[in-house]
């Protein structure tokens, strides 16, 4: 069975370490906040100017001056701090944020990422994605392994305009967990019931398979 979006988020949450400052992108990455393991304390950064993002407000307590980078109403946790957009990207650029989780349309075996533009379609913009991928120490991509046409999104080279080069460290897709290494995608785990053969057939870029590949447990 392929992982659900929630399970992808849940698997990524296991990568969190105590004390991490983490930036979560829009979509599946946002869901990671729902699965932070107990005993692990992380501080969520929202690039519009907040460290210490909390859950959505209770109905009626929403504050229009308090939103996240997805423009959703949010809350703060004790110890939070507000700052301007230059400082926000300053801390990202300076490598203070430990982990960035974002979505992707394509990732190459060298760790290039494309996630902002499809030629011929209305381009909405890159937002903060290019700044994040250019500077983050550790980038995990949450994505579907294949596009709706069934074509692999893990490629030898990206076909879409790039967001950043040689930056993705790890991918959690709906069927596999992979590290991006100097030699290509290294298969680490497979989704429950998904065979190595299936992952192989759905990965267009170079795939490294060594030893037994464990099945993810949920």
């Amino acid at each position, binding site marked *: 069975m392929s992982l659900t979006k929630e399970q992808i988020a849940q698997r990524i949450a296991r990568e969190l370490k105590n004390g991490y400052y983490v930036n979560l992108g829009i979509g599946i990455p946002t869901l990671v906040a729902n699965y932070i393991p107990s005993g692990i304390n992380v501080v969520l950064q*929202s*690039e*519009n*100017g*907040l460290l210490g993002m909390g*859950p*959505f*407000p*209770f*109905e*009626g*307590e*929403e*504050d*229009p*001056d*308090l*939103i*996240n*980078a*997805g*423009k*959703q*109403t*949010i809350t703060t946790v004790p110890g939070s701090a*507000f*700052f*301007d*957009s*230059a400082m*926000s*990207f*300053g801390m*990202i*650029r300076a490598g203070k944020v430990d982990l960035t989780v974002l979505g992707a349309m394509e990732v190459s075996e060298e760790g*290039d990422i494309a996630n902002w533009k499809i030629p011929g379609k*209305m*381009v*909405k*913009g*890159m*937002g*903060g*994605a*290019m*700044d994040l991928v*250019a*500077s983050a120490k550790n980038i995990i991509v949450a994505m579907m392994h294949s596009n709706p046409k069934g074509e692999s999104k893990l490629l030898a080279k990206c076909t879409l*305009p*790039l*967001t*950043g*080069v040689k930056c993705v460290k790890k991918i959690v897709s709906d069927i596999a967990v992979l590290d991006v290494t100097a030699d290509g995608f290294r298969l680490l785990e497979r989704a429950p019931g998904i065979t190595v053969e299936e992952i192989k057939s759905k990965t267009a870029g170079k795939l490294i398979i060594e030893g037994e590949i464990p099945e993810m447990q949920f």
Partner: protein
Amino acid sequence: MNKVVSAADEAIKDVFDGAIVMLGGFGLCGIPENCITALVKKGVKKLTCISNNAGVDDFGIGLMLKQRQVKKMISSYVGENAEFERQLLSGELEVELIPQGTLATRCMAAGYGMPAVFTPAGVGTEVAIGKEVRQFNGKEYLLEHAFDADFAIVKAWKGDTDGNLIYKETARNFNPLMAMAGKITIAEVEQLVPVGELDPNNIHTPGIYVHRIFQGSNYQKRIEQLTVRKAK
């Protein structure tokens, strides 16, 4: 030194056709609502607007787009506006999309008197086309120039009659950066207080950067994405 003006109409009275105008805010959060309404009323045209987003169809910069007042948008993300899309696809509107951190830093550089900065955002992408690339410690960076804006229009929570400003929560975003960057900076605030009432320890934008200030009214503070939990 009298920086206080009566209202938005007076504050923006010399914004001219073809001006380069910075507008603070992230989405609809912390946008200068009163000045946008006044710009729409004034009907000033061919503006170049530097703003992280372009509003929605019936609010924010979307109101100026609807009146065809904007010649060019410089933004990082413009996805929430159907009229914007229509004008872009028909060629009526120019758009320059730049990384959000680069946008912030180009404002900051202007306010700090620096002509340009180096940033890694966009290296190896189409954002790098035509830009100087320089290596520092083995990593590549792009040379990005400070903005040169005729007007910066910002929104703060509190301000005093000398132009000192305090922002609220994430409504701060681009506002303090743009406030520092305009040849003329116009601030609208929710509460305008006499000099001496704001704690100098808490000032985000010192008044030296602000040329005109007024207390705005009838703030709508629209929420773009209302997300809530059910009460326990």
